[in-house]
């Protein structure tokens, strides 16, 4: 269980938004110095607000973006600088479940053809063998009766069913690493649970390493081994799920947990304490701790960059309060 699948070291992804001949380039520091290791068979929930860099991190791990700095090591191989030509094996080992199923499926392919595409590209099986694989994949995501769904086009099915097709497509090559980018944010509440359970079931069945990207902390409790909290391009806290939820350390994590509405009618009578303001501009982030300008427990020390500290066993936090 403890052998390493993926290691990320001081990963930086900066996007240049302005480049002139004479002027200095201007960067958005979407991901700025993130490190972690990911062991076989585990799953991570990557949680943060929009603009925190969680999607960029996920997509960079899949090497859909090229990192600006740092290293990505997959099964001991450094894939940081691979050019797209020698990435085909990596594409086979990894997959992405997109956020928006309505935009992720080609409208002119039927479901059968959509699921056959990765098999054709990777030269898998004969026509008959492929049919068997596709039907089995459809059964697994409960698109049944299979014969009814196979000839349908994306516009003929519901959002939840589309997301099942996206999941089936992502998993059909049995990848080792799957990044699911807010897979249920576009779906109705009643369907969400179903899709999440499906994803978790598949993760357990095939021992896939799953990175689940979300802004919704309430859905992660049932979901993953680890929770990683991102804020303004940095990883501010990471720990095992139960540990993080029972003993959140970083002030940002606490604010995030506090902001989640729990279904209690008393809520309407209280004004919650919420950090003021908005996340910083990532072109010119604050020099020290990036949460400092909004933090209720800010100190002088916070003007300097906090180190990532392992406070307890396997519980890391980036905050001066714990030095």
């Amino acid at each position, binding site marked *: 269980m403890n052998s390493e699948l993926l290691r990320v070291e001081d990963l930086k992804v900066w996007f240049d938004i302005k480049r002139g001949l004479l002027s200095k380039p201007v960067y958005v520091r979407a991901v700025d110095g993130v490190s972690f290791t990911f062991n076989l068979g585990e799953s991570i929930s990557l949680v943060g*607000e929009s603009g925190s860099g969680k999607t960029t991190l996920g997509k960079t791990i899949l090497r859909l973006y090229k990192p600006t700095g740092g290293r990505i090591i997959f099964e001991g191989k450094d894939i940081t600088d691979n050019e797209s030509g020698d990435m085909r094996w990596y594409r086979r080992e990894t997959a992405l479940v997109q956020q928006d199923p309505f935009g992720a499926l080609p409208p002119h392919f039927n479901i059968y053809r959509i699921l056959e595409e990765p098999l054709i590209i990777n030269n898998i099986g004969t026509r008959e063998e492929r049919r068997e694989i596709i039907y089995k994949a459809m059964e697994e995501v409960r698109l049944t009766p299979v014969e009814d769904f196979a000839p349908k086009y994306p516009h003929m099915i519901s959002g939840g069913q589309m997301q099942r097709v996206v999941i089936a497509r992502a998993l059909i090559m049995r990848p080792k690493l799957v990044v699911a980018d807010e897979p249920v944010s576009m779906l109705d509440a009643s369907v969400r649970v179903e899709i999440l359970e499906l994803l978790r079931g598949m993760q357990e069945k095939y021992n896939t390493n799953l990175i689940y990207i979300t*802004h919704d902390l*309430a859905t992660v409790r049932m979901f993953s081994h680890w929770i990683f909290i991102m804020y303004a391009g940095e990883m501010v806290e990471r720990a095992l799920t139960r540990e993080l939820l029972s003993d959140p350390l970083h002030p940002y994590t606490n604010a995030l947990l506090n902001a989640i*509405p*729990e279904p209690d*009618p008393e*809520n*309407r009578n209280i*004004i919650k304490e919420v950090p003021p303001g908005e996340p910083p501009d990532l072109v010119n982030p604050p020099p020290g701790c990036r949460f400092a300008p909004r933090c209720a427990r800010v100190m002088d020390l916070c003007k300097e960059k906090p180190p990532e500290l392992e406070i307890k066993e396997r519980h890391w936090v980036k905050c001066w309060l714990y030095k």
Partner: protein
Amino acid sequence: MDDKLLLKVKDFSLSYRTRKGDVEAVNRVNFDLKKGETLAVVGESGCGKSSLARGLIRLFPRNVKNVRGEILLNDRDILSLDEETFRKEIRWKEMAMVFQGAMNSLNPVLKVVFQVAEPLIVHYDTDKNLAFERAKEVLGMVGISGAFAERYPFELSGGMKQRVIIAMALITNPKIILLDEPTSALDIITQENIMNLLKMLKKELNLSYIFITHDIALTSELADKMAVMYAGEIVELSPVENFYSNPAHIYTRLLLDSVPTLRGEKKLKSIPGSPPSLIDPPSGCKFHPRCPYVMDICKTEEPPFYKISQDHFSRCYLSEDKKV
């Protein structure tokens, strides 16, 4: 909150004409709203909750077919008013609306203070300078300081744009504000900030809200009573305490079971199937094809409203004598 009845909706129905047939988007909806009270309307997408809100403020799409029922605002039927009177006397003056995703519809080339002041200038012929004064005052109420009032929408963050939208709804001093998913595109901390703002405004101005959302946990931040909609109908109407602790309709119970919570170890469940087509809805109780407790009568006879307790009604045969 005083007990003065402000709005009474009686058998309100709304249907649209489409190429495939007529859609019964809102079907015989009844509810009351008191001054200072908040009604939250929840349901899955397509259940008619946004149609209901737009119907109340009479912003019908072009393909509207039938509008029936009565909407009494201070005992005056505003549904039978002609369009001109409604526009002059009701819309925005008595009842304003915060539209879903409106923060992305701000005019990019106008300063926000102008956009907030516009209803006053257009509808009330207010002097421009006075209108700007008032706009700045309202922007201050929603937490946007003077300097930001002179900015353009692209210079504001999502949360601030949403505050501008709320200011627009407040500027004409309405008594009722319809909130259609007011925080759906916002981050969770920003969402809490907006919820805090709405709570404070409600208290200070004694506003009534009709709060439309699919996020059930979020309703607890604002609602005094709850309406659960399914396939165009209100299936349960209850005080918020009963909604969480003693839900009557099977659909409400299943909906509550699908809400993820941070604390507690409850097992999440999903509701099998999907909502019916409103062009050709099922007979009897519209939820019967998905209901795990379905009985023969549910398939043929439409259930009446059963009174569970004071102000608590459920449209489910199992709510009779509280069988379940």
